[in-house]
């Protein structure tokens, strides 16, 4: 299997706070890989570092064999990866369609209508609401929009930060079904989740983060049955 993303010995600081302490992990082509862990374990920090929003003080990040450390934050998306951030962060005052257009900001205008149709196929609800301001959407719809917006750059690697946060269980199921469908359609997925049960059940492989370090890893199934993981993250 080809390695899409390879992070080695990442150290990330917020000022003097050492948030990520030597994290290494890999994502292979076509996989769903998840990072699970408690609040404050460093999951989002790791993802934001890969996405270019934070700079590691030490370590390397390679995407498809090429280092992306020196790449300007706004150019990371052109490399072929997209990050769907925590808390959705849709542009509330822009319409649904404008949000999606922003997702395709780096791509030529002529290719946008086709990608837009692809996204509407995954998220028919967004098509119904395309003229509406994103701020008026429900939480579930905003999550769909955030994912659709990330998809608009046609990423080969899609990173999702807490897509289930604050959603009703039925919507969580729906979002995870869509993640699996996107993966089947050929997108490699790196998923950060507090809902460890859901994340592990769809993941090929998983890493467990605790206070900035990876303390466990394995296939999704193995970790679902792992006693320490069960105890810490799956409620017994």
């Amino acid at each position: 299997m080809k390695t899409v993303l390879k992070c080695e010995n990442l150290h990330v600081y917020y000022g003097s706070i050492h948030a990520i302490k030597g994290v290494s992990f890999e994502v292979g082509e076509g996989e769903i890989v998840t990072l699970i862990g408690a609040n404050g374990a460093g999951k989002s920090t790791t993802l934001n570092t890969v996405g270019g929003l934070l700079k590691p003080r030490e370590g390397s990040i390679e995407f498809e064999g090429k280092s992306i450390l020196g790449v300007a934050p706004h150019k990371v998306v052109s490399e072929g990866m997209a990050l769907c951030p925590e808390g959705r962060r849709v542009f509330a005052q822009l319409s649904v369609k404008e949000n999606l257009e922003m997702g395709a900001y780096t791509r030529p205008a002529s290719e946008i209508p086709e990608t837009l149709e692809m996204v509407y196929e995954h998220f028919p609800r967004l098509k119904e609401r395309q003229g509406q301001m994103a701020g008026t959407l429900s939480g579930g719809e905003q999550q769909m929009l955030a994912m659709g917006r990330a998809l608009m750059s046609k990423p080969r690697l899609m990173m999702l930060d807490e897509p289930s946060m604050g959603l009703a269980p039925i919507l969580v199921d729906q979002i995870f079904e869509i993640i699996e469908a996107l993966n089947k359609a050929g997108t490699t997925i790196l998923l950060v989740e507090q809902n460890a049960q859901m994340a592990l059940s769809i993941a090929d492989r998983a890493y467990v983060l605790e206070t900035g370090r990876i303390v466990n890893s394995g296939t999704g199934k193995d970790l679902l049955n792992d006693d320490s993981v069960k105890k810490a993250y799956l409620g017994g």
Partner: protein
Amino acid sequence: MLVHLINGISLGSIYAIIALGYTMVYGIAKMLNFAHGDVIMIGGYVAFFAMSEGAGLPAPLALLLAIIVCTILGITIERLAYKPLRSATSLAVLITAIGMSYFLQNSALLLWGANPKAFPDMFKNAEAIEFFGAKISPVALVAIFANIVIMVILTLFTTRTKVGKAMRAVSEDKGAATLMGINVNFTISLTFAIGSGLAAVAGVLLCSAYPTLMPTTGSLPGIKAFTAAVFGGIGSIPGAMIGGILLGVIEILARAYISSELADAIVFGVLIVVLIFRPTGLLGKQIHEKV
């Protein structure tokens, strides 16, 4: 009455054009650029010297030159003074902006002296126009017309073009905009460029309407336009327009019917009352985030 109303709208249009610079920069960079009023003054001086006997450029070219100089000045101010403070506290940025304002005023004082200059009449060949019996000066009409054109262009730019939409995206969430591949620094520079170019237009209009040009010429109109931006809802483009025009009309009517000494006090009094009842201004953003 009609003549006061039209003069008010005209003065308000100048305020609106200045207020746009405040409001757009605030929307994008979340900072109050108190040096904005002084960019207006620089624009006035550039146009003044371009039209003076030595250079003798025609008025449209002088205006163009003022726009170019102010645009470059605006980008330079942002690069040198504000960009290094992008992650600093807003108070540090505010103090820097006030410092920049004094720097520009004192540079003008040093270069061009304290003596007021009489700004040439750009419309000396045009006659006052009769409008339902009211005599309207050409500069008043030009100001109103310029304001409308600028509003239409800016509205189209921010709603129809890719870069304009990206500007709105950056004003909402810089991090998310970066993730989309939008170059936030470029967008901020562009906003300063547009705001400062508009300041040049406002400077020339202002000096044509009130032809005394000195290093402090931009201060009070700058403060009033800032008030107009807050009045309309800072960060909102239509808010700047409505705020500017209301402010101009209130000022001229107060001057005509109540007292010219009290006019400014009345203007700021109205602002206080509006902010008590609508803290975000007339068109301020009040969308609540959904979870």
